[in-house]
């Protein structure tokens, strides 16, 4: 095929190869426009710190910790201004909602754990972060697949 002009058909390039090219290009764009892992890791650390210290830290410290969400939100806003804007999904994905609800439920259950000593606080921090990270990654993957499928199958 004349790659520079792109005219005519592509006998040498099979349809399967072209479909793979389209899949790769769409996956790259989906990855570029998704939330960065660093931001999600910071958000997870923030949630884990807040939840693991809520039974031992004074209210002032908890408020100070909660206020750290503001710079995180500003970073998020700055980041999204420079990224391609994702298209609204035509069909909602069940897996995404499932992991979201599972994460909420698991974090709600973890709140009943009253961590008072340093070891318990560390264990709770790790547990909350692990649950948050697991659900975030699954949600991220489910959303990426749904966005690719949507882009390839829905014209509107």
């Amino acid at each position: 095929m004349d790659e520079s002009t792109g005219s005519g058909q592509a006998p040498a390039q099979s349809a399967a190869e072209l479909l793979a090219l389209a899949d790769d290009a769409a996956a790259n764009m989906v990855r570029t426009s998704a939330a960065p892992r660093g931001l999600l890791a910071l958000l997870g650390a923030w949630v884990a710190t807040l939840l693991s210290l809520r039974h031992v830290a004074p209210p002032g410290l908890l408020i100070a910790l909660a206020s750290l969400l503001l710079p995180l939100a500003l970073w998020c806003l700055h980041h999204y201004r420079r990224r391609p804007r994702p298209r609204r999904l035509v069909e909602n994905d069940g897996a995404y909602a499932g992991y979201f609800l599972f994460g909420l439920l698991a974090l709600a259950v973890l709140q009943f754990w009253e961590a008072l000593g340093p070891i318990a606080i560390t264990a709770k921090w790790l547990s909350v972060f692990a649950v948050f990270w697991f659900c975030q990654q699954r949600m991220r993957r489910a959303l990426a697949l749904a966005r690719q499928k949507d882009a390839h199958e829905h014209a509107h």
Partner: protein
Amino acid sequence: MSTPTEPQGFDALIHAPIRLRICASLAPVQWAEFAQLRDLLGITDSVLSKHLRQLDAAGYLRAERFSRAGRSHTRLSLSAAGRAAYVGHLAALREITGATR
């Protein structure tokens, strides 16, 4: 743009690998900036511009110029016709390969 031997929805303009990748990159987003698309595809400004002009001439593309911090940017998106042509072309490719996804 299809011939009788090609499946319905086959679009010769989009069939070129670079233009297919441009459409595939723009399909999951509302818009992307020219520089982002160029970096993602790993091609030069001139090559990208040339293919964008061809897509634009067919009415498959929308380009919007704006300035931010004193610099000029171009925001690109697939038009409704472009999106429909892209989805139709992928369906035609799947038909050729016999894929059912």
